[in-house]
């Protein structure tokens, strides 16, 4: 676990894996993962994605949760290009009650803290569909510069949508402590969800694996 101001980074497993079967089929996932084809993700596909990210030597999927342990969503660093110390950063909010909150913003800041202050990257890339105002505002608040617009780049619900590109450089990152102090992050006060039912319990009644 890496502890932040409003959220902590934790392994993407247990409750996260359970919630992910729902999250990975919701619009927020496809808004975050602009290159993906819009299609249903059955249990197997969700499991495979987690496994793929666990084996990924150039990236990782990390969960983020409130200080009460309420899972919010995930952050992904990916396509690490070691020669030039560059990564792509992706934030997705699974529990949409947290969309636009300072907890969600802190998820992004914690990802930046990790890649700049632990992995030593030089540059972080981020992208947003042109209509995704919440994400774009987060990028600005986190200190990203808007670097350009890929015109009519992505097919979305019958139209071609522009893709906005952002970049943040290591010498522009003030440090996690400084930026969180500047932004004066405040908790949203959202009540934690009840814990999800354990799959094994649901299937077997006793909660034990057969034989």
């Amino acid at each position, binding site marked *: 676990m890496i502890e932040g101001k409003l959220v902590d980074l934790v392994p993407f497993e247990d409750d996260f894996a359970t919630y992910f079967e729902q999250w990975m089929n919701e619009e927020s996932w496809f808004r975050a993962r602009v*290159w993906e*084809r*819009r299609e249903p993700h059955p249990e197997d596909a969700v499991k495979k994605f987690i496994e793929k990210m666990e084996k990924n030597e150039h990236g990782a999927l990390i969960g983020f949760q409130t200080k009460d342990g309420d899972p919010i969503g995930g952050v992904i660093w990916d396509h690490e290009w070691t*020669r*030039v110390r*560059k990564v792509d950063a992706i934030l997705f909010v699974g529990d949409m009650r947290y969309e636009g909150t300072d907890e969600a913003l802190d998820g992004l800041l914690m990802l930046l803290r990790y890649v700049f202050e632990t992995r030593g990257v*030089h*540059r972080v*890339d981020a992208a947003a569909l042109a209509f995704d105002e919440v994400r774009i505002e987060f990028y600005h608040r986190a200190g990203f*510069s808007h*670097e*350009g*617009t*890929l*015109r*009519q*780049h*992505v*097919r979305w619900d019958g139209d*071609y949508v522009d893709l906005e*590109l952002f*970049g943040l*450089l290591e010498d522009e990152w003030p440090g996690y402590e400084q930026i969180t102090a500047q932004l004066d992050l405040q908790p949203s006060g959202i009540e934690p969800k009840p814990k999800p039912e354990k799959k094994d319990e649901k299937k077997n009644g006793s909660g034990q694996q057969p034989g």
Partner: protein
Amino acid sequence: MFEGLLVDLVPYGKDFLDRENEWANAEASFWGSGGDRRVVSRAQTQARLQRWAEALESGHDTGVAFGIRAKDGTPLGFMGLTWVLPYHRLAMLGAKIGDPAYWSGGYGTDALLLVIDYAFDWLDMHKLWLTTTGFNRRVMRQMEKVGFTLESRARRETLADGQWHDGLFYGLLRTEWPGRDAKIEQLGLRVRAEG
């Protein structure tokens, strides 16, 4: 497969694969990689080509590879779609001419016009895009000439010879493409007598 004025686009077969290791260790690799200086063995190149073949076969690589062949049969390099997303009708272009003697001679542009027509007229793409670096003047000039728009500039994205350089994103929409014949006319490209 597709006949141009100076070059033809043909399957990226043995004639081309046999040159891969030489090209991987040459100046072409520096430009193609955005500043890397590679020193690779034949075995490393072979392993890379093997991975590429497997990715194509398994469908992980959605690209289309052409060889650029001069009219006298010389294999010049690669021209192709390196990443095709049919659901976005979006394809990324990639190119490499191995031998510097064929740079700035119109060979790459000739091949590019062919592949653009192929992507729009046969694969029904909506947009083509590519990335290069802020120090690659040849590609920048070519993009402007052919009608691509510079859409984004990733600041200090790549390192070449000790200096950080921007990454450039170029795009061409189908609605902006007049067709190869019209573009050839506009640019005044002609068949040349060789030698």
